């Protein structure tokens, strides 16, 4: 028996999960067709974590995410149009086409940025938590990170400082078992649970593909954080369906592992939950069709958008430019 969840809430989470999936599936095609430049890292199979955690946040909260961060920014409320324009390198992108997939940020909704450096968002989120504490905003900060980042020193430094200063920081590990192209079991000797215990940080582990379990755990942890009781670690066990990067042939993964992934898919699992709540297939199909249409509209708008201007990029190296250079 799973965690109890309200039907309306479940429906809204399903919309987010389905949106992330639809967007990323369309990115696969856009990338293959050369419409998305650079590198992209898809979170297919991990969408329930982004949906569940972000739905538990309030407006004043902030988050830092990772190179695999499409889900987090969409779940936080970034518009599809601003998103597609950014990853397609267009002027109207949320970052003006300067950052792309690995650097999507939107300070207006508390997104301190995806990040191209593994683990780098963790201490940035800690800094945001310090700001919440100093300014008494009542807000909390979330650091999303993958299991590969457990080997980065900044995670351990951050856990230490966050514990010492009782910071309102939620450390969300999306554990998909892979550190880029290597199994994390061969990369990291410890367990996150033990590290959290060493720093006396509250730790919760959930099935990250069960959206009801994720939001339940996120809400409970965030309520504690808002009381000023110090940081928390939420480890969400999940699966990475696509490669480390899009186009990765994943020859390092066993065929039976790849074949088994569909049985634990968060989209179909959430649909099964919806059925239990009396939502029929027709209604689900209708939601899917709406999301498909919204996604296609956003892609069309991105295709029609202009290229970024070089002059605008030059202007934004500094807020206040040099005045006495020639």
């Amino acid at each position, binding site marked *: 028996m799973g965690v109890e969840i309200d039907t309306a809430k479940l429906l809204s989470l399903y919309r987010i999960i389905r949106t992330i999936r639809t967007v990323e599936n369309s990115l696969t095609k856009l990338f293959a067709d050369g419409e998305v430049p650079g590198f992209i890292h898809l979170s297919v199979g991990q969408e329930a974590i982004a949906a569940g955690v972000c739905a538990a946040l309030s407006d004043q909260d*902030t988050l*830092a995410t990772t190179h695999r961060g499409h889900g987090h920014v969409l779940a936080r409320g970034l518009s599809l149009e601003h998103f597609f324009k950014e990853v397609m390198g267009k002027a109207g*992108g*949320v*970052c*003006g*086409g*300067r*950052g792309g997939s690995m*650097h999507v*940020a*939107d*300070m*207006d909704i508390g997104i*301190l*940025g995806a*990040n*191209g*450096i593994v683990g*780098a968002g*963790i*201490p*940035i*989120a*800690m*800094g*945001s*938590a*310090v*700001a*919440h*504490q*100093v*300014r008494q*905003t009542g807000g909390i*900060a979330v650091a999303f990170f993958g299991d590969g980042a457990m080997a980065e*020193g*900044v995670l351990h*430094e*951050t856990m*230490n*400082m966050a514990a*010492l*200063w009782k910071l309102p920081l939620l450390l969300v590990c999306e554990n998909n078992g892979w550190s880029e192209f290597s199994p994390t079991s061969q990369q990291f000797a410890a367990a996150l649970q033990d590290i959290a215990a060493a720093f006396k940080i509250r730790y919760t582990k959930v099935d990250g593909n069960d959206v009801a379990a994720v939001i339940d755990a996120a809400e409970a942890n965030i309520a504690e954080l808002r009381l000023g009781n110090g940081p928390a670690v939420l480890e969400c066990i999940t699966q990475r369906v696509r490669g480390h990067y899009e186009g990765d042939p994943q020859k390092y993964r066993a065929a039976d592992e790849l074949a088994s992934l569909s049985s634990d898919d968060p989209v179909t699992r959430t649909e099964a939950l919806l059925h239990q709540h009396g939502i029929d297939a027709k209604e689900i199909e209708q939601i899917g069709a709406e999301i498909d249409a919204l996604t296609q509209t956003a892609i069309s708008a991105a295709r029609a958008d202009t290229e970024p201007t070089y002059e*605008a*990029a030059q*202007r*934004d*190296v*500094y*807020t*206040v430019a*040099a*005045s*006495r*250079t*020639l």
Partner: protein
Amino acid sequence: MTEMKYAQAVNTALSDAMTADPTVILLGEDIAAAGGSFKATRGLLDAFGAMRVRDTPISEASIASLAVGAAMTGVKPVVEIMFMDFITLAMDALVNQAAKARFMFGGRSSVPMVLRTPHGGGLNAGPQHSQCLEAWLAHIPGLKVVCPSTPGDAYGLLRTAIADPDPVIFIEHKAMYGRKGSVDTSASIPIGQAHIARAGRDVTLVTYGATVHLCLKAADQLTHEGIDVEVIDLRSIQPWDQQTVLASLQRTHRLVIAHEAVQAFGVGAEIAAWAADTAFDELDAPVLRVAAPFMPVPFARSLEAQYAINTDRLCDAVRRSVA
């Protein structure tokens, strides 16, 4: 105008900035209860409390990154890194995060943080506690780098740096904390504006930081030989004041650049290349540099004395320039 030591000028600037703006916070190793390794933050914990003056663990990478996240969330952090050599551990925060956030996020954010750190030798502190690494940071688009040479400039530039919306690296010199000078707390010093520390007709000697004082000494010695040296204290390294240097070259037509940092690929190399490009027609002599040799800073007194630039080397270079 008040007479105070360099460390006290830094301390006063921090205190005045914190009084003026409740979002200014201080972070660093042993800066609170202990008052800082060089006592630049003494008394500030008592004045402003532990919420705003934070002793951090010895975790340079995370302290600097923390400042980035705090700066993006409405706080103005001033971080102290105890010795400039330790910024090696904080380079991701500075280079990949602080410097790029505004550009990378489409101009929709800024990172108003300051990182204070002392560079420089002369204390026999050895290869890992004496380096001048400012050229690394000046090479990164998005960072501003300042290096004041007097208590007055330290006060003024630190206030400007804290108020600046961009990340500023504020470089002090550990041998200069006890140096006295007059401080005008009402004077505003913009980033990027040089100061002519000594006017002269014959040679332009461009420098910054503690080396300014060495250059002034050399200039005094050279007056006995009838050579009149103009000493320009850059004060800011990134951006640096090209207008003041060019105007000086239009008078002297000779350029010598001096700094304590290693010569190869340094600040002097950039200024020399700029002069060759922009001021070529003004130059009546080759551009010369006086800077550290290509070796780590040695420990032993005799070795460090031989390694460091001195007035003799400065005078030799100026003489060659006018020869």
